Structures are given as C-alpha cells and as structure tokens.
C-alpha cells in the first residue's frame, strides 16, 4: 500500500520559532498515524552522532521509517560553487549511511545567468554522477529531485534523460508533485495569482514509473483539500505506475496557515484520496 511520511521541514514555522524540535516532529507523525519521517540536512547541522542515533531509535519505537535526508541546493549560486556542493553531498551521504537511511535527496542544479539548460547540462550530469559514485560506495541511493525555480531537471523529459545518462542503480528518483515546470507552487512571484499548467501532470506521468519516493506538496489546504494540485489525478498516476512506496507530505503554505493546523488536513486529504482510489480500483477489478 502507499504509505505516508512527514517531511520535517513541513513544520518549518514551529521549528524556527523553537516551538517544536525534531523529536516533536516524529511524535506528530506518530500521532497522525503516519508511516515515516523525512529529514533535511539544514535541520541536522548541529546534530551530533548521539542525537542522530536517538532519532533512529525513536523512529523504531514509533513505527516510523526515516525515508530520506534532503540536501539543500542554492539555485542562485555560481557554477564555481559546485565543487563545494559535491563535498557537502559526500558528507550527507556519510550521515545517511551512518543512520541507515537509504536515500539522499539531491536536486540537480541552478542554471546560472548566461547559460541555457543545454549548455549547462553536462556540468549538472557530472555533478550528479560524482554524487552517485560516492553514494554507491556507501550503499546510499541518490534520489534525483525534480526542481524548478531556474534549476534542472525541471521537466519529466529532463529527469528521464538524466536518469538514463547516468544509468546507475544508485541513482533513483524522488518525484515532487509541486516542483515541475508548470506547477503553480513553483512559479516564483506568480504563485499567488498563477494557475497550474496541464503540462505539470504530463511531467508527473513521465517520471512516476521511475520514482521510489513521492513528495506531495501542499500549498493551500484550509478547505480540507489541496487547491493548487489535483491529488485525485496524481494518486491515480502513481498507482498506474505501480508505485507502492512512501508519499512524503511537504507543507509549503506557511504564509496562509500554520503547519500545526495544515498538516493534519493534508494527511487526511491524502488518506481520503488514497482510499477513494483504492475503492475505485477494486471496483474496476471486480
């Protein structure tokens, strides 16, 4: 069955204010009867080994799996920063290996001014290839994360192309439902007034068969249903692709609603959709 996990950054507002710490996020996921938690390197900067080990034990006690650790990438950084980023990716791979976390989330890279997707492509492939090679040595799979905001890969075609060019079992795909070109949530300044383009769902359809984890973005969920993304459609696409893994709930609507109120709504919405889709699938089979 498709399982739900909570990306800790969803609680960014409460973590930043000191209202919550990472252990509280784990407990929140358990209270919501979720199946996992996902972490980000920026949340673990001050974490020592003992703290990380305590998180692992807590996850076991609460029936949660730590699905992936994410690496933040500055999409506005110049190309000269790539070497430094690769070093940081290596240290995150080491951390994931120590924690027994199987996947490290890595977006590609920003395309600097004056470059095009095509002209910058080889450099991004080389960066990812080096990350994958290091991951292979430590038994950690790099999860290529589709990401817009001036970065590549940002389309379904680009994700598939990069996966095929690198062609390693240690490179897989983390599909972000809100980060393909055409997504309202990934349109920068236009996001409040823009609309979701139909092409978003084509990108999702193109890469769903390659995904081992899906990140379900939530932007506006006050009504109890996500307004900017059609999860009925997305869940159907994932199921049709045979997806059986974790959907990571990633809340990014903090300007509209605090995470403490929004996350339970997001979880319930996904659960409703997953249940509806399951019932429809049973009906189709019978």
């Amino acid at each position, binding site marked *: 069955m498709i399982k739900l996990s909570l990306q800790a950054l969803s609680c960014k507002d409460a973590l930043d204010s000191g209202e919550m710490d990472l252990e509280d996020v784990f407990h929140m996921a358990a209270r919501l009867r979720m199946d996992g938690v996902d972490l980000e390197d920026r949340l673990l900067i001050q974490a020592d080994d003992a703290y990380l080990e305590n998180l692992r034990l807590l996850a076991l006690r609460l*029936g949660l799996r730590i699905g992936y650790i994410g690496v933040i990438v500055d999409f506005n950084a110049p190309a000269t920063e790539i070497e430094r980023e690769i070093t940081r990716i290596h240290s995150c791979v080491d951390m994931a290996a120590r924690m*027994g976390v199987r996947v490290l989330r890595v977006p590609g890279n920003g395309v600097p001014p004056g470059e095009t997707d095509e002209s910058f492509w080889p450099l991004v492939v080389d960066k990812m290839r080096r990350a994958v090679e290091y991951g292979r040595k430590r038994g950690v799979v790099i999860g290529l994360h589709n990401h817009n905001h001036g970065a590549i890969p940002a389309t379904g075609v680009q994700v598939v192309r990069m996966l095929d060019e690198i062609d390693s079992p240690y490179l*897989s795909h983390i599909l972000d439902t809100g980060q393909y070109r055409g997504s309202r949530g990934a349109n920068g300044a236009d996001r409040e007034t823009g609309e979701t383009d139909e092409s978003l769902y084509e990108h999702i359809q193109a890469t769903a068969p390659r995904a*081992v984890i899906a990140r379900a973005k939530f932007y506006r969920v006050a009504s109890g249903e996500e307004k900017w993304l059609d999860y009925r459609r997305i869940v159907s696409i994932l199921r049709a692709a045979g997806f*059986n893994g974790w959907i990571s709930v990633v809340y990014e609507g903090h300007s509209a609603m605090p995470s403490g109120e929004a996350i339970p709504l997001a979880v319930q919405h996904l659960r409703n959709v997953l249940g509806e889709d399951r019932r429809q699938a049973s009906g189709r089979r019978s």
Partner: protein
Amino acid sequence: MIKLSLQSLSYRDTFKAGNIDLMGIIDQAYELQMDGVDLHYTHFASTDPEYLEELRLATLRRGLHMCYIGVSNNFGKKGAELEQQAQLVRDWVDVAATMGIQMVRVFGAWVPEDETEEDVWPRLLETTRQVTAYARSRRVVLGLHNHNHGCMPATGEQVVRLMDAVDDPYYSHILDTGQYRGSPGASFGERGKEDPEHNFYGSIETSAPRAVHVRAKIYRIASGEEAWLDYNRIMPILKKVGFNGWMSVVFEGQDELDEPAAAPLATAYLRRMLAQHDM
C-alpha cells in the same frame, strides 16, 4: 497506520523445495501491495555483499521496508555451545548492520529437560546482555521474540522481566500473536486448542506496550478468516497501546493449505481486520 510485511518463513516449504528465494519473497510482497519484508537468516542465499546489496535495492524499488532479520538462537545451551549461539547472533547483527536493517529477531532460551526456567535464567540474561552490547556497538536493535514450545520467555511477564533486567534501548520486543503459552498454535497439548490454564491473550496485553513489531500468526485461513486466533481480540489490544509499526504475516498452517494460496488470503484478512478496527 499499521503496515504489513511478509515474513519469508510463510513460504518455508516452498523454500525447502527450492521454488522460491528471497528475491521471490520481495516480489511476492510487492504483488500483494505489502509494506515490508522480514528475512529469515536461513533463507539468505549468501552473505556476499553484492547479494545483500541486490536485496536492498530490490526492496527500495518496490516500496518495502526491511523490518528485521530473524535468527533462531538458543541461549539455553551451555559452555562452548552457548558461545556458538552468541556468535550466531553477532554474525547476523553484522549482516543487518551492513544492510542498514535496524533489527535482528532473537529468541531467549530452550530449557533443558534436567533444568528449570530459573536454572537457565542467569545464563540467558548474561548472554543476552553480552550480545546486546555488541548489537549496540553496531547500532542494531535486538528484538526479543516470545516463544513457547519449551522456550522462554513464553509469557508476557517473562518478556517484561527479561527486558527490564537487560534494560537497554538496543533490546526491544517483537510480539508474536501465536507464540505465548496457551495459544492454540503453541500449546503443549493438542494443536489448535487454546490451553485455558494460560491466559495467552493476557500475555499479549502485558507485552504489547513494549512491542516495536508484531508477528501475526496465521494457522487456519482456508475460509478467509483465521480460525485459531481471535484477531477481534488482538487488534484492540494493539490499538489501545498505540501500536503504529509493522505487522508481519507469518503463515504456519502448511498442514491445511499450500503457502502460495495462504499468503494472499492471510494478507487480505489482516488488512480487513486492520480496517475494521481503524488501525
């Protein structure tokens, strides 16, 4: 939500006949849309790193968690034999650590005929402490499995007593629904009959708050419903303690039904039970 995993021992006869391997178990778990697999140590084709890595990658692609490796140790042995048993656990702790599997299932001790449970207790405790220290050094948790058939701990009180005596975060509990003393599947008397002298549902209730994993035994599932264990009693016990982890399907009714036919029935039944109890 409670998640379902497939224990490879559910196909023990199929393994013996050479008709399935661990990759087949992983495929089967995916076919049944389950959420994890438990790997019994005798089912590994080898401990070659490339093979272990193949298994890891296969589970990731299929959305399955590797819950634990099951080791069948006996800390009721003595002397050199006892040390061999401890080494067996340490060896599989190493495999688990290599694979990033967080837990290894361990038993307690089978009580020799010329000894009492209390006679065996000190060496069970001491050996358990030693292997737990090793597991801690490899960041692997040992999951104590309750087991009857001459083994201890076979009651909820014994599980709690042993866990409290070891008192280590790397020593936890895998609760087996059919292996407490008095269970129809684990009684000394006629198999299939609950022994009323032992309140085995009470044992489940006693150790449930300690469990990080549950093994759901299935003995008679041909009708589509488990006939020997009452999951309408077991599920509320687990719900009451807020259990949110993985529940293994462990089929042990090979004398009634073929394994390939039983696993889908058992999975569908447990899924239905979990849904009925909103778990």
